[in-house]
């Protein structure tokens, strides 16, 4: 997979993104190997998805199928969903509870750690056939990934030499992560999934781009939920720029110097059910929105009281899926649960806000997809990659591509 690609990154560096990164299948293959299959921790599940011994859940890292399973001793294992015999997908339910995994094809059986425990006809039938004498079960375990757990969130890596998750995130990003995952037990509210006809990186860019939010999203802008004139920060991890956060504080529904250029701003817009936009503060500090993007596949959403993991799974260069897990805390009272469910109307496949993003990401793919030799201009907020104290910027997109280019050799 190391054949040279016939491309050169634009001379301007991180303030340009060549469009071949969004459509070339060879770039996509290299991403599977180096981004998702390489030195990264991918989000795979919440511990609350698999609370009991034997609980499992299927998912994908990039496009590679894996199974996340709770072991009998309470530990968590992440196993490739590929039988060690001849490769069949042995786990064929999306979620459930199992004592062991039996591949349907020739019924090789594995325990919950992925160890091969049984091979039918291993010693043949009527002294005929069977495995060679030197066949050993322990040579044919399921491939297991390196796991990292923090605050009830499960990450996994194909690279067993990964540093601790805490070092991977860095202190600044870890602080934001721990703000939501503060040790309280989580409670699952439900799942949503969308398939988008767009390259997966457009999803990350969308969440690393506070610039668009003030212009595209009538809802956010008019109600002051997230807007260029609100006090805000965009921050990256200390070392690489691969992770970032957008932090902001809710403003009011009133006109200001900033709203003049927001054509979507509507001071008169009113909700019939205003409860949807009446959040209750629940985290320390005065930020009301923290959107964190964690390389290579996770967005942690905290907008008011709606909390969700948005996991990116890829299908091909021009298709990805967004897997949402909405959650709260196990000790939420009914009023808080109801609040979270109401505010979930902002997000997800039918979200008052996120519908705009889904549609516009496809519009981006439809526009740039067939022009691999053209490039994006990413100069809002300068050309650098340093933290900024406002949201009129595309800085974390530049930081993301700075790291991406290192990983991909571009």
């Amino acid at each position, binding site marked *: 997979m190391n054949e040279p690609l016939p491309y050169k990154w634009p001379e301007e560096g991180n303030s340009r993104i060549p469009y071949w990164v969004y459509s070339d299948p060879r770039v996509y293959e290299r991403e599977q190997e180096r981004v998702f299959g390489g030195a990264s921790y991918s989000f795979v599940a919440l511990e609350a998805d698999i609370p009991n011994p034997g609980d499992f859940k299927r998912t994908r890292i990039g496009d590679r199928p894996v199974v996340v399973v709770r072991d009998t001793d309470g530990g968590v294992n992440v196993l490739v969903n590929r039988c060690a015999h001849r490769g069949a997908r042995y786990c064929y339910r999306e979620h459930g509870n199992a004592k062991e995994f039996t591949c349907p094809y020739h019924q090789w059986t594995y325990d919950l750690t992925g160890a091969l425990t049984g091979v039918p006809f291993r010693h043949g039938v009527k002294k005929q056939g069977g495995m060679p004498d030197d066949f050993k079960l322990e040579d044919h375990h399921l491939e297991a990934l390196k796991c990292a757990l923090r605050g009830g969130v499960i990450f996994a890596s194909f690279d067993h030499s990964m540093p601790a998750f805490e070092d991977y995130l860095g202190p600044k990003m870890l602080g934001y992560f721990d703000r939501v995952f503060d040790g309280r037990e989580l409670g699952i509210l439900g*799942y949503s999934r969308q398939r988008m006809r767009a390259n997966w990186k457009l999803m990350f860019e969308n969440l690393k781009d506070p610039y668009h939010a003030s212009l595209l999203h*009538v809802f956010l802008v008019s109600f002051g939920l997230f807007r260029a004139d609100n006090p805000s920060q965009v921050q990256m991890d200390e070392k690489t720029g691969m992770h970032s956060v957008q932090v902001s504080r809710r403003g009011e529904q009133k006109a200001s110097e900033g709203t003049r250029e927001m054509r979507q701003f509507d001071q008169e817009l009113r909700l019939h*059910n205003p409860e949807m936009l009446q959040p209750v503060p629940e985290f320390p500090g005065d930020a009301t929105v923290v959107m964190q993007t964690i390389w290579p596949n996770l967005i942690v959403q905290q907008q008011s009281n709606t909390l969700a993991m948005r996991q990116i799974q890829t299908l091909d260069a021009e298709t990805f899926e967004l897997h949402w897990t909405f959650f709260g805390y196990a000790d939420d009272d009914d009023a808080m649960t109801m609040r979270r469910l109401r505010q979930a109307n902002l997000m997800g496949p039918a979200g008052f806000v996120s519908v705009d993003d889904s549609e516009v990401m496809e519009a981006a793919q439809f526009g740039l997809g067939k022009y691999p030799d053209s490039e994006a201009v990413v100069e809002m907020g300068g050309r650098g990659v340093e933290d900024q104290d406002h949201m009129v910027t595309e800085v974390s997109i530049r930081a993301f591509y700075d790291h991406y280019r290192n990983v991909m050799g571009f």
Partner: protein
Amino acid sequence: MTDDPRLLRYEVEELFFAYVECLDEGEIERWPDFFTEDCLYKIISRENFERGLPLAAMLCEGRGGLMDRVVSVTTTSVYHDRALRHLLSNIRVKGVANGVIDVQANYAVLETLTNEFTTVFNAGKYLDKLVRQGDGLKFKEKLCVFDSVMVPTSLIFPI
């Protein structure tokens, strides 16, 4: 309340047919009129529904909630043009108790984006509660339970 099950069935079918006609003909402003003031409307995936998870893709509480969706579709949301068409089948009155009529029906929504083939956008079942109000039936509760957890791009219009 009519005692004649054939008459009731006719009335229920008329309501469902008028409901999907309203949506298919793009007359979404009239959509809340099919509901009672204190209605509950939800579009929820079969996965969440069957696992007892409360998260809905769309949750509207009362007619106000429906009207907020109307505002979003007609003024605030940004999306590609499309034509939608509902196909209904198997409309069944499952029971009548205390003035509430339980109805179940299958639906499929066909979606046609500009310059694309028509596809099945969403399919599932309605689990509804109807009540008589004035001279007609209205939805007191409408639950759209859709089969595929995977939504193609986005769910913009009500079902």
